[in-house]
């Protein structure tokens, strides 16, 4: 029995190594200057540059971008992540409430319209989506960045499942006490959904923060770049460079992953619950 357990740990530790080592290596290497990295490859011990690369990326414009520095991109990433998560939760809770708690003609029709969006990811209809956003004059705006991403019904589907599991007795009791639909929603349903809202908030924040293709198309003005969008700029500079700024490239990668990783690790139990339940 004892011997078997050791092998289990060996397998798990190799798994952990596979997941963690690339990022640790990137972090350690980012503490060396670009020339050292260019000469002798990725580094396995800390260098004497410290966190200089992070300072450069965060506060100095003109590494990969001409006008904006990392702080502006960090701010834009936050706006995209928070705006997307909050917008999605509000809109999909309202829609799910209407679908589950109201009897009205066209209900089934609306249901299918909304859920048809689950069928087609944005990547498939990327060109016409871009053209429409362009026609509406929403290129290089936060609305153009966030609102089209909300069009998929994952959140609505999730809240619909949850509302269906809320016992009918609550609604009956509320109605006997004279609560209207609005009061019932605010005073009973929203408080009941708190854990679910938190879980879906985390998933959506990470999803919004990590968007790449859509921001690269919609934001051409540097002041709207997000950190993940900034990676596209790195690549364009990289191809032409003699000695690429490896240290700053790695600092940028670490910075772009840090906030969502922290959120997921801290709120791990909510996030796992949300992920597993939402896809059921």
């Amino acid at each position, binding site marked *: 029995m004892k011997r078997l357990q050791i092998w289990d740990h060996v397998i798990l530790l190799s798994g952990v190594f596979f997941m963690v080592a690339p990022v640790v290596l990137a972090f350690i290497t980012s503490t060396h200057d670009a020339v050292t990295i260019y000469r002798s490859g990725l580094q396995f011990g800390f260098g004497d540059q410290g966190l200089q690369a992070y300072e450069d990326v965060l506060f100095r414009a003109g590494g990969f971008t001409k006008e904006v520095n990392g702080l502006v991109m960090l701010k834009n990433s936050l706006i995209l992540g928070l705006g997307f998560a909050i917008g999605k939760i509000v809109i999909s809770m309202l829609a799910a409430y209407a679908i589950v708690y109201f009897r009205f003609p066209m209900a089934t029709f609306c249901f299918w319209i909304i859920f048809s969006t689950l069928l087609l990811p944005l990547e*498939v209809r990327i*060109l016409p*989506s871009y053209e429409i956003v362009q026609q509406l004059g929403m290129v290089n705006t936060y609305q153009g960045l966030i609102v089209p991403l909300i*069009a998929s019904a994952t959140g609505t589907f999730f809240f619909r499942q949850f509302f*269906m599991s809320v016992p009918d007795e609550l609604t009956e009791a509320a109605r006997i006490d004279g609560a209207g*639909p609005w009061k019932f929603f605010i005073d009973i349903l929203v408080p009941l959904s708190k854990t679910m809202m938190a879980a879906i908030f985390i998933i959506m924040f*990470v999803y919004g923060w990590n968007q790449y293709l859509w921001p690269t198309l919609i934001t051409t003005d540097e002041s709207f770049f997000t950190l993940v969008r900034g990676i596209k700029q790195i690549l364009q500079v990289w191809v032409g460079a003699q000695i690429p700024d490896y240290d700053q490239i790695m600092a940028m990668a670490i910075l772009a992953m840090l906030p969502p990783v922290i*959120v997921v690790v801290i709120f791990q139990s909510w996030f796992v619950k949300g992920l597993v339940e939402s896809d059921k």
Partner: protein
Amino acid sequence: MKKVQFQSRLIPYLLLLPQLGIVGVFFLWPAAEAVRSSFYLEDPFGFGSTFVGFDNFIDTVTSTDYGRVARFTGVFTFFVTALSLGIALLLAVKADKVLRGASSYKTLLMWVYAVAPPVAGLIGILLFDQHVGPIVDLVAMFGWEMQVGVSYSDTAIAMVVAAVWKQVPVNFIFFLSGLQGISKSVQEAASIDCRSGFRRFWTVTFPLLAPTGFFLLIINITYAFFDTFGIIDVILKTEPGNNPVTLVYKVYLDGFRGNDLGGSSAQSVILMALVFILTIIQFRLIERRVHYT
């Protein structure tokens, strides 16, 4: 639907308005536009378009380039799905079994979920870089000169490794929660009847995990098709050249770089049909899963 419901003429429509508005403008309209323009040939100088029926589809499907990309997408999807499911299942089974450090393992194995695909691609391309990449140095000791970005197959390998790295956590989370959902009494009964741990896994645990596995299979295929865009774009350093690309990447290339609106739309429509089929299968599986639990 609920047995107890509210009656109102106006409120449900008001509640649905924001969602329906966004779906209408940013989903239905572009989807319809994609279908429409797949039947038209756009004038390259922007002077109108001509109806060409199924020509765009025929051109797309019969072009040798499309065949090559479709084949690569199939191979890529197979390896990404098989490897990330296999590794995740192994790790989940072990993480479910160990007594000490289970929660630390869990955290360390799932945090990569939060890493964006292009960031995964960026770290991947550094590890596989000609000048600085340790993996290139490592395989060079075995006489393999890896040239990511130059050699077709080497680039494909880097893409698969980065895509698997990014996908293992999701599968791990689902497998682990599936394993933890198997009741203790079933496991105890099995361990009395069957002493071999390996056989017990195949005959008892694995069949009980099958619904989760099928569900994840669809999720992984969808991932390999669509969500790997960022990984591929970064590993190619946005310059595909002769390197492998997937079908979704080709839709983007032909539409935005090649300005072939009709061809790109026809490819979109083909992909739509494919996702449609996958989603129908997924819904049926979800219904089955609900029956089981």
